[in-house]
C-alpha cells in the first residue's frame, strides 16, 4: 500500500496501537487504557487532517490505490451485472468496463473507468486511461440505453484519455467528442459520479450527465496539476501550486456550480472504509434516479443541454 505523507503521524499512532495490542498482556488495565487513549487520539488526528486537506493532498487521496474502484462499486451495487465488450469497430477497451445490470431493482447501463488494483490488473486496465475504443464503446452503450430506455450510471475515475500513437491514429479526439455528444443526445437519465480522478477530456466524455456528483475527496480537472505546473510554472515541482490554482476539489467544483452535489466519504477517506463509501454513492444515485425517472424525454434532454450550454455563460 502506498503511504500518504501527510498521514504519517496517524499511521505511526496506529502502528503503536497495533504493537501494544500484540503485547497482549491482558493482565494490565493500564495497557488497555493506553490503547483506548491512543485510539481516540488517532481518530481525532484523522478527523483534523481530513477536514483540512490541501488541494494537493486531495489529489493524492483521490489517486489512492486502496480507494474503491469501478469493479468494487459494481460488485456491491449492481446485481446481475452483465459486462458487454467491444466497440464493434476495433477492440475491447479494458480501461472502460461497462454493461447491463440492476441497481437497487432498476435495470440500467453502467459504465466507467477502472484503474486496476495491483500491477497485473493495472496493466490490463491500462491504468484507467481509455483509448478511442473505450469512448466508442461508451457511445455504443449509451445508444443501447436509449434503445432499451434504461438509465445510465457512470463512474468516473481516470487520469485522462491515453496519450499514445495508436490512440491518435484511431481518432482519440473524435471518439471523446462523439461520446460527449452521445451523452447530450440520449433521452434517458444519466447520472455521473466522480469516484476518484476526473481527468480532463477522458472524464467529461462520460460525465456530461443530468446530475453529476463528486466524492468528498475526489478531484475534477482540465489538466493534471503536474502537467499544468510543468507548462505554466515550467516545473512539475509546483504541482501543489497548480492544484490550488486549478480549483479542482469537489468543494471548489460545487462552488463554481459545475457539479450538482458532493457525496461524503467516511472519516479518513474512502480508502479506509470502502463499503461505507460505496453505500453513500449508491444512496445518492438512488435519490438522483428517483428525481430523474419521472421526467419526460424532452424535459430531460432540454435541461441537460441547457445546463451545459450555460456553463461559463455571460450573465
Amino acid at each position, binding site marked *: 500500500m502506498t503511504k500518504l505523507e501527510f498521514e504519517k503521524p496517524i499511521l505511526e499512532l496506529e502502528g503503536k496501537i497495533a504493537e501494544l495490542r500484540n503485547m497482549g498482556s491482558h493482565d494490565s488495565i493500564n495497557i488497555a487504557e493506553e490503547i483506548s487513549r491512543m485510539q481516540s487520539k488517532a481518530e481525532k488526528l484523522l478527523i483534523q487532517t481530513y477536514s483540512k486537506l490541501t488541494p494537493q493532498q486531495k489529489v493524492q487521496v483521490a489517486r489512492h490505490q486502496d480507494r474503491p474502484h469501478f469493479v468494487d462499486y459494481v460488485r456491491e451495487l449492481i446485481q446481475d451485472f452483465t459486462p458487454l465488450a467491444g466497440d464493434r469497430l476495433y477492440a475491447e477497451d479494458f480501461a472502460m468496463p461497462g454493461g447491463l445490470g440492476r441497481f437497487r431493482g432498476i435495470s440500467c447501463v453502467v459504465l466507467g473507468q477502472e484503474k486496476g488494483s495491483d500491477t497485473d490488473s493495472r496493466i490490463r486496465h491500462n491504468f484507467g486511461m481509455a483509448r478511442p475504443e473505450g469512448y466508442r464503446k461508451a457511445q455504443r452503450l449509451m445508444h443501447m440505453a436509449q434503445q432499451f430506455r434504461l438509465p445510465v450510471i457512470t463512474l468516473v475515475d481516470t487520469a485522462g484519455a491515453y496519450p*499514445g500513437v495508436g490512440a491518435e491514429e484511431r481518432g482519440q479526439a473524435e471518439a471523446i*467528442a462523439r461520446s460527449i455528444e452521445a451523452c447530450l443526445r440520449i433521452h434517458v437519465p444519466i447520472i455521473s459520479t466522480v469516484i476518484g480522478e476526473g481527468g480532463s477530456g477522458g472524464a467529461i466524455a462520460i460525465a456530461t450527465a443530468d446530475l453529476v456528483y463528486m466524492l468528498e475527496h475526489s478531484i*475534477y480537472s482540465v489538466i493534471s496539476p503536474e502537467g499544468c505546473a510543468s507548462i505554466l510554472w515550467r516545473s512539475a515541482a509546483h504541482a501543489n501550486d497548480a492544484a490550488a490554482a486549478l480549483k479542482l476539489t469537489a468543494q471548489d467544483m460545487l462552488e463554481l456550480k459545475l457539479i450538482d452535489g458532493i457525496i461524503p466519504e467516511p472519516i479518513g477517506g474512502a480508502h479506509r472504509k470502502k463499503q461505507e463509501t460505496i453505500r453513500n454513492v449508491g444512496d445518492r444515485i438512488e435519490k438522483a434516479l428517483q428525481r430523474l425517472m419521472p421526467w419526460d424525454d424532452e424535459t430531460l434532454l432540454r435541461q441537460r443541454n441547457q445546463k451545459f450550454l450555460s456553463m461559463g455563460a455571460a450573465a
Partner: protein
Amino acid sequence: MNWLTNFIRPKIRAITAQKETPDNLWQKCPSCEGMLFHRDLRENMNICYHCGYHMRVAMVDRLRALFDNGEFQEIQVPRTPHDPLKFRDRKRYADRLKESRAKTGRDDAIIVAQGLMGGVPVVVAGFDFDFMGGSMGAAVGEGIVTAAQVAARAGAALIAIPSSGGARMQEGAISLMQMPRTIAAVDMVKEAGLPYIVLLTDPTTGGVSASFAMIGDIHIAEPGCTIGFAGKRVIQETIREELPKGFQTAEYLLAHGMVDMVVPRKEQRETIIRILDLVFRKTKDSQGFGENGAAPGGNGRRNGKKKGRGGGIAALRRAANINKRSDKKVRAAARR
C-alpha cells in the same frame, strides 16, 4: 476566384504594419528556409511562395478571403466573467488577458462573423491564435454558442475555424465544460438541418479537437496543420518511442479517416462554396435559401459573386439582433 479584391485591404494593412516593424521585412520559411519578403508573403496569404508551406494567417485576413467580396459583419459576443478562478501562476491570468487584449485588440480568442459565401448565408466562428494560443475558455465557448444560435435562427451554415492549443488552463474546469457546451451548441445547427463545416487549421488540439472541432458534418483541413488530441511531447514521454513521420498532420488525419479533405488555403473558399451550393440549392434552378422566394437562387455555378442575396444578409441581421426566440421559431426559421 479573384484574390485581388480580397486582398486590397490586407495589402493596406500590410503597408501600415511595415512602418511598425521595419526589422521584419524579410523572414525565413520554417519549412524550406527560403527568404520571404513580408509584403509578398502577405499577398500570398502567408503561404511560402517557394515551397507552398502554409504559415498561420490572421483570422481577419482569413475571413476577408472567405466571404464574398471580402465583406463580413462581426457579431458581438456577450462578455463572460473574466478570470473566474482568480488564477495565478508565475503571472496573473488577469494580466495575461490584459496583455493579449492589448496585443490583439480583441476581447478574447474568438471572432464571430456573418456574411455570404457564394451568396449563401454563413456564420463563421474563427479563432485568433495570437490570443493566448487560441485557448478555449468561457469567452470562446460563448463565441461558439453565439455563432451557432445566429446560424440556426437565420438558416445559415456554420463554419468553425479552430486554431487552438486546447482548453484554457487558467479557467480550470470551466474551460473543460466548454467541451460539452460547444458540442451542445453546434448540435443546434445540426438539429436545424443546416450544415456545420469545420475548417481545421494549425493547430487543432486538446479540448478543442475533442469537442466541436471533430464533429462537423464535413471536415476540411489545411495542408500540414497539426491536428490531434494529446500533445506530441506527452505522447513521447508516455511511449518513449519515436513518433511516426507526419504524425498528427492534416495528411495523417486524412489517411486515417478523420478529415474529408486537405485543401490548400487558396482553394478553401471555392471548395466551401461548392459544398454550400450543393447543400442549399438542391436543384439546379432552386430558389435556394432566400425567404419567400425573395432571393433569386443561383444556378449552381461555383462563383457566387453574381448571385442574389435578398434573404441572406437580412435574415442574418435579424437573427443576430433577436436573442430570445423560442426553439420552435428557431427551427421554423432554420427550415426556410
